[in-house]
């Protein structure tokens, strides 16, 4: 194995950024990025304890960046894999409105509460950039949940929502469970002992991309006899069933910092019915039913103080599930199924803080094999990235962070010049920042001046269209002002 291949593999590189981006784009509205999770360490009050007061609540996640490429152009995201550094992510924000009520319980479980959650997301362009009254918007949450019926640890929800677990903050990535679906679910949390907390959650939902793989309308003669009307000729939503079990083990009792471990087992089952569509050749063709499965797990350690944690994620998906919840499968098998698609993913997320020093770490490796069975498919790839961000706080409200990252991609195809389709990129950033909320990797708001230098190799340049400036430049600068905040955010 060549050094290049070792580097590629050991850094867990991979996926066609384009494909992965497409997948991500399906999971979230184009150009938007979901908010980061709260710190992924739990506390002892995690299970079953209401955390907000009754009434109306406003929450928000947001980031706004104004940046230059120091060559007279705008600063622009330059990752070549699906999940690289978040330093140059574009502007995105959410406003979250919640109505919370508490009701008397007849089950002896104490209060029963309900929440109605509405999250509206905005992506660019901003009016102050373009002077135009326009923005891309999406409803990211629209659901209600209730807690405390039957048992104080019981909860149920119905609606449309983001449904996900812990993230890798530095990559803006939810590596294990990240569903966007319309459906419902239940969760049972058992605060079994003061050292253990266990919960089980089950959810089921539907999703239907506006793509001829799952949905198609065709004009049909109108019943009135005049003109035509569109009728739905293909409608086969994807049904996703998810099951998640989580167990927290605390190393000690009492108050103060309580370290512990977090274990998560997670699974998804995806299915779609058969259907008939009219293909591009204007021929009716049958689409066979589809299934897929995903299994994964998470192992985490949390120190119980200052957001210190480490999480390791592993996931393997087959068939329909290998494409993610919203991506329209491509490169199908000759019988037009996703059956032989595979995805394997490992990810790491960690944060360490001590005194005025902090260290954030994030990385992932993803191997994807499309369903075509073609060993040379461009849609068969490995990709990954590793990001390290050391932080020094100079007092309570000021700090300096640096970030180094490496990302790489390799597909089973070769380029037209005979060279392997591989790409890699080194990125280094410096970000002096202000944290009004005090020290901490996750204290927000976070005001920063960001400088990011990127060095892309020839393969990385070739991942862009020939006329794209990124296709011609080996080095990239990104200098900008950035702010990020979250409070009462939709992550729960």
């Amino acid at each position, binding site marked *: 194995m060549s050094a290049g291949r070792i580097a590629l593999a050991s850094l867990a590189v991979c996926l066609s950024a384009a494909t992965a981006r497409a997948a991500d784009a399906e999971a979230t509205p184009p150009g938007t990025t979901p908010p980061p999770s709260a710190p992924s360490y739990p506390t002892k009050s995690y299970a079953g304890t209401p955390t907000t007061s009754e009434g109306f609540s406003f929450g928000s996640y947001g980031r706004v960046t104004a940046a230059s490429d120091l060559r007279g152009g705008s600063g622009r995201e330059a990752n070549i894999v699906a999940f690289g550094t978040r330093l140059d992510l574009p502007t995105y924000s959410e406003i979250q409105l919640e109505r919370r009520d508490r009701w008397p319980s007849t089950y002896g479980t104490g209060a029963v509460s309900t929440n109605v959650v509405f999250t509206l997301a905005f992506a660019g362009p901003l009016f102050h950039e373009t002077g135009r009254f326009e923005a891309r918007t999406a409803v990211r949450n629209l659901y209600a949940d209730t807690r405390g019926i039957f048992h104080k640890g019981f909860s149920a929800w119905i609606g449309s929502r983001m449904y996900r677990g812990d993230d890798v903050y530095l990559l803006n990535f939810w590596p294990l469970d990240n569903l966007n679906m319309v459906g419902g679910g239940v969760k049972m949390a058992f605060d079994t002992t003061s050292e253990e907390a266990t919960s089980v959650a089950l959810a089921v939902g539907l999703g239907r991309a506006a793509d001829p793989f799952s949905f198609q309308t065709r004009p049909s003669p109108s019943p009135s006899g005049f003109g035509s009307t569109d009728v739905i000729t293909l409608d086969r939503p994807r049904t996703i069933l998810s099951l998640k079990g989580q167990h927290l083990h605390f190393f000690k009792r009492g108050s103060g910092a309580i370290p512990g471990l977090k274990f998560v087992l997670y699974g998804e089952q995806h299915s779609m019915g058969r259907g008939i569509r009219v293909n591009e*050749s204007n021929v009716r063709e049958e689409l066979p039913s589809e299934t897929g499965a995903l299994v994964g797990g998470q192992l985490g350690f949390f120190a119980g103080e200052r957001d210190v944690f480490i999480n390791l994620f592993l996931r393997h998906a087959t068939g329909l599930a290998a494409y993610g919840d919203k991506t329209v499968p491509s490169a199908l098998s000759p019988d037009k199924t996703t059956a032989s698609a595979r995805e394997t993913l*490992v990810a790491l997320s960690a944060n360490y803080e001590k005194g005025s020093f902090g260290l954030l770490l994030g990385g992932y490796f993803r*191997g994807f094999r499309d369903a075509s069975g*073609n060993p040379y498919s461009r849609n068969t790839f490995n990709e990954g990235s590793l990001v390290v961000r050391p932080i020094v706080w100079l007092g309570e409200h000021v700090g300096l962070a640096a970030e180094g990252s490496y990302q790489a991609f390799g597909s089973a195809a070769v380029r037209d010049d005979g060279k392997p389709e591989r790409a890699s990129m080194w990125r280094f950033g410096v970000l002096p920042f202000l944290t009004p909320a005090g020290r901490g990797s996750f204290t927000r708001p976070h005001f920063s001046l960001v400088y990011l230098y990127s060095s892309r190799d020839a393969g990385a340049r070739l991942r862009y269209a020939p006329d794209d400036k990124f296709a011609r430049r080996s080095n990239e600068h990104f200098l900008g002002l950035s702010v990020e905040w979250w409070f009462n955010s939709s992550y729960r």
Partner: protein
Amino acid sequence: MAMSKMSKKMKTALFALSAAALAMSCVDVTHEETTSFKPAGHVAEWKDEVLYQVLVDRFADADQSNNYRVNKSHPARYHGGDWRGLEDRLDYIAALGVTALWISPIVRNVETDAGIDSYHGYWTQDPYLLNPHFGNLNELRSLVKKAHARNIKIVLDIVTNHMGQLFYYDINQNGRPDESVEGGIKTKGDKTVHITEYDPDYETPVVQSFTSLGNAGPAPIFFINDPTINRMPPQTPAAAILGKPEGYHRRGRIVNYDQPPDGDEQTMFGDFPGGLKDIATENPEVVKVMIDAYGRWIELADLDGFRIDTVKHVDHEFWQKWSAGIRAKAKSLGKNKFLLFGEVFDGRDKLVGSYTYNNELDGLFDFPQYFQVFRDVFISGGATKKIEARWLERKTNWSAEPPANGIGVAPVDMHVNFLDNHDVGRFLYQASVSGRAADAKAVLHNALAFMLMEDGIPCIYYGTEQDFAGGNDPANREDLWVSGYKTSGETFRRISRLNKIRKAVPAIRRGEMAFTWTTDHVGDEPDAGIIAFERKTADGSYALVIINTNKSHPSTTEAMGAAMKVSIPNGQELVDVLPDAGGQKVTVSGGTVKITIPPTSAVVLLPAGARI
């Protein structure tokens, strides 16, 4: 205690991460085709080969991910075939007995023009890039590698004469392409012609512009820049000359192919119909690009030869320089027998043969034979003397000297024989419309027998084996998958059998060919329609092929009491090996062979005891 437990679990977690990373490192997506692909020579003797022409888009669709703009209902759109599909069907190809695949062009094309798509591959946009409709380089390499593993060679179709419709002539100088130039009906001689800025008629020295005030000098040309259909100058810097006016002749469309001297000039300098822009092949920079671009594919894809399109539209000097450059490149890769043969779509043998001199090409399609033998004799029932005449004509007009650094065979022996191809109606179609439809299949079988037993390299157009009978382009470019790739059909078995005989008998592949019977008779005469020839080698391999092209009655190798003389000794028993179980037997007597052949049928006689 708790912390020590934690520490243990942390170690476990870290170990798991390391193990996972290690496991992932084993999930390697690279392949030998990527990392250690090395071209080499694969051809021992081209005269042993049987070509099979494949239009990749219509052969087999194995990868749906490259089915961009596919419309299988429309005969002139992409239908989805790809290199992987071809690879998946190598068993089928091998069963047919062919030994070399001529695959349609692989380079990036203009996607579409005037409602027709570039599924055929002849509308080059960038000769350095692959056409993604057919796959990526690894898939092409994999096809080549798997084919070579079966001793099947790969010949690539290339075009150096023209590019796709990359620019328009701004005849009225209004800065935009007009389908119809304002006031654009003008008279040329006694003809009224329509002027379009995409494909105007031929003019010298270049297409002229005119406005309402009169002639306005040379029409400026503008390259179209429409990436949505890939209609733009080449993006590879090395091909920059093909994105500049000086890379083209800019004389407009050929309207006279036939009448020299004007016709020859137009043929050489005019745009190919459909607005395919004629390249200035006398430009040294163009020559360099064409050597570099196509030489590069030899190396990248381990090719064994080129089938060259529109040869007669390019100047001889180009072929001399280009062939030398390509041969040198091939030799540097260990390919000492890299085949260069081309298409001179013309019945004039002198013109066709002219490209075999001065070390130009190794061989050519035998278009004169297509017209004079297969059309006039086999289909139309002409005299078989014409076949012999065709033979003599070729010997007169084609070079008998092997080209320097070529494949080691004289071009006169490297005529590529064919019944039909993608540019003409299929043989069955022609036989049906020009002859009797009921006879068409038997005529096809007869013609196949001649083509596969005669001297030269036979070339079978895909679908012939499935009795495809499409008319002219695009009707002759059917999807092979509709046949179900059956190998049990009569024609498939006929071709397979003939190839088996060809493979087993050195005389048929490499031997001398001598006519033993041809005739002017086409009526009721006993020998009407008989064509017979011997194939033999110095070391004793021998075959006697006798074909009756007459559709009405059995014919005999005898006329006016004189039987057909042969060169093998008296007493030698000959057996027809064309039927699987063996056919007629005949013994040489008095230095002659007398045998009666049913109408529209053939025998391949080998010395008794020969096993096929």
